[in-house]
């Protein structure tokens, strides 16, 4: 809404926005020149702006300004910190830039190896500390008596819902079981009967979850569509 107000305050911007909106929506009919032009502009602008923002916040604020300030103020401690915290990264970064040349590309591999190693460690720690432990903890607390509502009427509902969530979480996990019983050649592999029942239930829970999320995504997209229709209508009212 307010973004429209900003645009409407600027007739040229509003008209360009209007044109781009029509060009993009034309994709509904099919892939066409107008859509391609619009997304080409969009990719250029979006990527350019993102690059500027990130470079501004990282390279400018963390690499260039600190050394400039440390030198001007003669802050030796700051320079020392910079030499250990930032300078090696800058050297590695410049080293990595050799990737731009196909001839020197291989030389930057150790830097990428370093990035990959750090990334791998980060995702492991993030998965364990950010997802596994909190989600397991939350599942265990489902039926915690401390979280139980005092009213008897709500208590039953709370308990049943807790059991359903617990069963859903467990069966969904079981659904992903990859290993199956050994079978003789030629016979299609399948799980044991109990596993089959459990994983079928898990599959059902997954479908319900995806259905709820899909509806949410659709509602968000529909809101965007409504916003565009409103924007087009406001431009028509203003200019035509």
């Amino acid at each position, binding site marked *: 809404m307010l973004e429209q107000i900003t645009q409407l305050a600027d007739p040229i911007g509003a008209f360009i926005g209007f044109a781009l909106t029509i060009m993009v929506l034309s994709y*509904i009919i099919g892939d066409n020149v107008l859509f391609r032009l619009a997304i080409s502009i969009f990719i250029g602008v979006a990527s350019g702006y993102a690059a500027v923002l990130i470079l501004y916040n990282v390279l400018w604020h963390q690499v260039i300004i600190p050394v400039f300030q440390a030198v001007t103020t003669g802050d030796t401690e700051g320079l020392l910190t910079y030499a250990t915290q930032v300078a090696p990264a800058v050297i590695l970064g410049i080293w990595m830039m050799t990737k731009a040349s196909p001839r020197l590309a291989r030389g930057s591999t150790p830097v990428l190896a370093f990035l990959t190693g750090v990334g791998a460690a980060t995702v492991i720690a993030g998965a364990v500390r950010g997802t596994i432990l909190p989600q397991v903890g939350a599942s265990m607390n489902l039926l915690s008596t401390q979280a139980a509502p005092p009213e008897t009427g709500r208590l039953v509902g709370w308990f049943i819902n807790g059991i359903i969530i617990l069963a859903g979480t467990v069966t969904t996990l079981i659904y992903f079981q990859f290993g199956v019983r050994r079978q003789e050649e030629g016979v299609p592999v399948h799980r044991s009967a109990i596993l089959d029942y459990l994983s079928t239930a898990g599959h059902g829970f997954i479908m319900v979850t995806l259905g709820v999320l899909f509806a949410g995504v659709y509602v968000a997209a529909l*809101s965007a569509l409504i916003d565009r229709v409103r924007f087009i209508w406001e431009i028509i009212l203003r200019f035509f």
Partner: protein
Amino acid sequence: MCRKPNTPVQEECLYCQAPLKGAGFIAPAEPAAEGSQVPPSEEPGEEAPPAQSDLFSSLEDAVPDWLKETEASFLESPAPEAEGPTSEQLSDQIDALINQPLTSSEGQGPAIDDDWLASLLAEAGLNEPSIEDLGTAQDQGGIELEPTGTSQDEPGEEPPIAPEQVQKPDWVSHLEAGSTIKLEGGMPPGEPPDRGLQVSETTGQEGPGEVEIPDWVGKPGPEADTPSAPETEKPLAPADLPGWLEALKPSEDLSPSEPVEDLTTAEVVKAGPLMGLRGVLSAHPSAIRARKPPTYSIKLRVTDEQHARVEMMEELLANEQKPKPLPSKPIISSRNITRLVVALVLILPVIWAIFTGSQRVPLPQPNIIPGVVNCTQSVQRLPVGASVLLAFDYEAGFSGEMNLAVSTAISQLLMKNAFMTLVTTTSSGAALAESLMNASLSTAGIPEGTSAYTNLGYIPGGTLGLLGLATSPRAVLPYSLDGDNVWAAAPLNTISGVADFSAVLLITHDPDIARSWIEQVGPLLQEAGTPLLLITSAQAEPLVRPYYEAVPAQVQGMVPGLAGGLAYGQTTGGSPQNGTWDAFSAGVTASVLVILAGAITGVVVKMIKAKNKKES
């Protein structure tokens, strides 16, 4: 050729499979193989003279007298009348045999039905075996017979006789004396029965090329069937030749005389111990190279059908090499039309609602949507001039859905005279934040540049950046986007960690970002009692709501999606509806109808298909 020793009876080299016996006899048969049915009798006339002149000029001294005589006498001897036609017939027969190796056994049908052969086989008591033998014999004969084909009719018609028993004419005796190789090559012990078998079979098989079979053939059954098995040579009485056989002697004489014919055109050995001999197996490799039976047999074995297959394969390969034009996508397809219809059904009600500014559907009330009331109350409870952290972690695409709620929150905070610190972990967040702040300030009549907020910009490092922000925001974002060191001055100089803010308002469309904030930063906020408020998109609501519903709540207030924004707007004096909510309602209703219609169609089509399958 490997030049390794072979036993005289060997027909091809044991080591390199080079033909031994055939070698000397291929030459005269080659024209026939090439399809020219020139009778061998003519060949000398055409080819022999130059060959002889060469021979005599170069090897006059080397050639022994006896050989000169034999050559002379043989060159003078006239060609038999029967030779021309029989050679043609046989070459036809052999072509037929070789070109249809697989149909050999089928080919026995007519052969067996044929009276004389049927009786022969019956008396021999080996119908089936003999048929198989014939098949195999044909294959062998394909190569073996060809060279000597010109002489196959005679031995075939007469009852086979053990070669060693045959009364040889004088010239043969001379020949034997002169060259043992000739004799062995010409009549190996096992050959006559085979030949007899071949011919009798082929004559049975070849309709057009069938030779006139005299009546007598039917009588001497025992003799006739002997060829089929080696041991049947025994019953053949050596000297028990019928009188009529005498009459055949001249023609019979021809049989061994063929090799001599070969001599006229056969190469003279120019090197090695056999130098000067004609038609003998040369030790010179070129002799073998010049006569490659495989090439010869391959030529013969290619049938029309195989030719056709080869051509087909060549065509396929040629097409493979050609770059295929990739199929162009149809512009108007049923899918595109359906897509267009769906789009119209969805968009038209929305357009109608927006253009008419319809207000039939009642706006969502704050108390109906969980979290909205708590959110607005949490903001209201903030002290005047409080420092609030606003995380603009959403993409521009969701601004249509979320900007109403965000602008409401900002105006509410402006009313509380709060100082807003803006951060983001997305690439669009900083610009969205700045735009919304400017718009809100202008709407609230606050002049731009008023120190109501500071935009710290982008937090690099994703979740790690958030952890850094939670504990040491100064290190992660040392300067504002304007380049000011905002941490040195009030009100941020009192802030050392994220928990020092009075409230944290997270605005995101991404459930992962919401989880990162709630799980990584949330615990610190809970310890300090700082409320974490959430403005989110409808797509993230299902995954974020549990944190709001949790006991104790990890999110203190929540405004989900467009509905939440409209409800939240009403808590601060109402927001203009202008048909937005009606358009939303109409859009949802239309889309539900489309989905149901599609699902029903799908089920019906599936049922029809299943029914058709059953019927078929």
